């Protein structure tokens, strides 16, 4: 058994050793909040395009759900271990990442926040969306398109993530404050899953035949809402506003 197992191991070692050639270009890991949604893939595309333009090597990673704070910590820690030139981070939980960010600071690795950024003074720059305000803007837009009165519903992706909470509260808060003639009849959570969101949206549409507008708080949710409207043949009667961009929209 021994010689036959040692040989392939030796081959693998040699292969891996040659893989790690010295990289002349700077390396920047990009750690996002998610991975599979087309929204994050769009972010990844943008990052890769910029990487090519500026001659930088990047890696793009993110945990499989926005609640996996610990997995993101592990990614961040592994990224730090690679001694990159900079790190881009969309933190799921600011407090949790601060010890690692301090390590980055001590190692003189600049941290750049994106999406919801990081709520601390360590990042040197941030490119973020203010979810509350943006969702409020969505509320205004929807109100404008349905004549500022009527029934609407919301499909949010996540009850517990920062983005889910902010987008829902931003939308609801704005509706309450500025559009009192609009009633939000239902808020449902589809986990960002298109199929689930479709089913939830359909249920809402069937329960409220007079509904005039729907808001999908992330890409999966928005696609779900669109599917539901299409399947129930209510195009033209229901206005759909979505957050985050995906190809299917």
């Amino acid at each position: 058994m021994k010689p036959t197992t040692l040989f392939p191991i030796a081959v693998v070692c040699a292969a891996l050793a040659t893989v790690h050639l010295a990289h002349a270009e700077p390396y920047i890991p990009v750690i996002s909040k998610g991975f599979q949604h087309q929204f994050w893939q769009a972010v990844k595309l943008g990052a890769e395009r910029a990487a090519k333009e500026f001659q930088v090597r990047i890696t793009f990673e993110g945990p499989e759900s926005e609640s996996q704070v610990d997995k993101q910590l592990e990614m961040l820690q592994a990224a730090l271990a690679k001694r990159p030139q900079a790190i881009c981070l969309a933190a799921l939980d600011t407090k949790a990442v601060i010890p690692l960010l301090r390590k980055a600071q001590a190692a003189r690795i600049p941290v750049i926040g994106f999406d919801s950024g990081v709520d601390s003074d360590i990042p040197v720059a941030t490119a973020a969306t203010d979810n509350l305000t943006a969702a409020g803007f969505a509320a205004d837009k929807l109100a404008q398109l349905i004549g500022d009165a009527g029934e609407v519903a919301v499909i949010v992706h996540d009850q517990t993530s920062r983005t889910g909470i902010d987008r829902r509260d931003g939308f609801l808060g704005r509706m309450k404050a500025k559009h009192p003639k609009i009633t939000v009849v239902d808020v449902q959570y589809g986990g960002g899953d298109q199929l689930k969101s479709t089913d939830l949206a359909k249920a809402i549409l069937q329960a409220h035949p007079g509904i005039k507008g729907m808001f999908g708080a992330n890409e999966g949710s928005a696609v779900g809402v669109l599917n539901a409207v299409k399947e129930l043949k209510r195009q033209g009667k229901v206005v759909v506003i979505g957050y985050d961009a995906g190809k299917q929209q």
Partner: protein
Amino acid sequence: MAPPITHTDRAASRPRRAGRTSAVQTVLAFGALIVMGVVFSIASPNFFQFDNVVGILLATAVNGVLALGVTFVIIAGGIDLSIGTVMSLSAVMTGIVITNWQLPIPLGIAAGLATGAVAGAINGVIIARLALPPFIATLGTLSVAKGLALITSGLRPIYFTDTPSFNELAMGSLIAKLHPSLEIPNLVLFLFGAAVVAGFALNRTILGRYTFALGSNEEATRLSGVPVAGWKIAVYAVSGLFAGLAGVLIAARLDSAQPSLGFGYELDAIAAAVIGGTSLRGGTGTILGTVIGAFVISILANGLRILSVSQEWQMVVTGVIVILAVYLDIVRRRTQEHA
């Protein structure tokens, strides 16, 4: 080939009881771990750095504790799919007691552990008394625990900002106090402490004996007059207790109780146990093996990240390695038995 062996000859030439491992097997299991470490170290100078090794230890802690608990259940011939969500529920309970009700931290920890143990006991009752298959029963409690975690937390994470000493419990470093240059968080100590306790329970207590008995031959155990139902409940309660501990630890580490985190974690825990030599058929398994299995998983994940393997490919590689690791373990055991 060897001449045909009669049944009695074979029994006589196999004095080793199922459940005990030889020193050789343990060394081989360690060997796999060391080979992985060496391969990654050669591939990247960034792998074997102090900070990264500590990172690997941290990453193994929670999954390791979960795996320790589920090892008992698997050895006893069952399975526990609910450990992930029971972990979240326990974390949430700890959060409610410490942050919402503002009770002292030890009470919060007790609440978390108790939640896990009770959930495990409920699993045991459903399986032992209602005779549901463990897969279905724990699938059901997985869902119940998931929902309860969301309900009791009010659909949002519970933060421990007012009680920084809770976070300190996991991320502070006793080791650093003794040896200032070794900043190893306490979470790692909890993992090894839990492993020692689990090892003791499995190898030196009646609970451990009956765990193996249930897994090797439940019918014979029952016919020997052992109250099988009661011991089954105890075994599942142990699994739940460890899930509860994992919940407390992850809450302390992240300084928050995340009610949606945990679903899916049962798979990594079960994989760790199986990679470490715990057979899904029951009757075999060791705590050391489970710990090694947990490290195999976290070293693999970390190594691939250090090598900047893209995330999609990480998933493929991990799956392949898991299959290989379990296969090698089966082959190893088969050659051991025929030796």
